[in-house]
């Protein structure tokens, strides 16, 4: 997402990340990873519940071969999880919202290595204003 951020902003849009954990942890993440977009903390899972973000049981979390393959690929590519979030069994999700009260795109991840393709997110953005 960081790599496409300038492109997204040029389209008149913003990126907002919502995570679990505490604000200090999120702040360190933003600094360490040079995150250019807003990062918010959903400490009580209010946003996750309203957005219908899925949770899985720990057996699925640990044993889903898709998650295992994704974790192995990420590890090979140098990604490391420094600290697990407060709700490790909560999956991710991606939405394109607005302007106004509308959902242009919705994707709830099926497993831990599942993520919305960037081209789908970009394709859901409205055309830039003339």
């Amino acid at each position, binding site marked *: 997402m960081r790599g496409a951020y300038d492109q997204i902003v040029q389209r008149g849009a913003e990126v907002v*990340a919502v*995570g679990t954990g505490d*604000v200090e942890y999120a702040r360190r993440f933003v600094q360490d990873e040079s995150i250019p977009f*807003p990062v918010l*903390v959903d400490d009580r899972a209010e946003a996750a519940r*309203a957005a219908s973000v899925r949770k899985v049981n720990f057996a699925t979390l640990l044993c889903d071969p898709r998650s295992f393959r994704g974790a192995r690929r990420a590890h090979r590519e140098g990604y490391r999880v420094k600290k*697990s979030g407060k709700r490790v069994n909560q999956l991710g999700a991606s939405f394109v919202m607005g302007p106004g*009260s509308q959902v242009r795109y919705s994707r709830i991840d099926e497993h831990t290595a599942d993520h919305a393709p960037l081209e789908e997110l970009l394709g859901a953005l409205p055309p830039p204003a003339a």
Partner: protein
Amino acid sequence: MDLDSLERVELTGVDGQPHRLGDLWAHRPVILIFLRHFG
């Protein structure tokens, strides 16, 4: 998704300030990403 409820949620940003979600996309589109963990 319960859009009305989602838009009413206020979350704290790394700036320490509350942010009402619906305000974030009131006037421009937003790619909203739910992360499993930070980093």
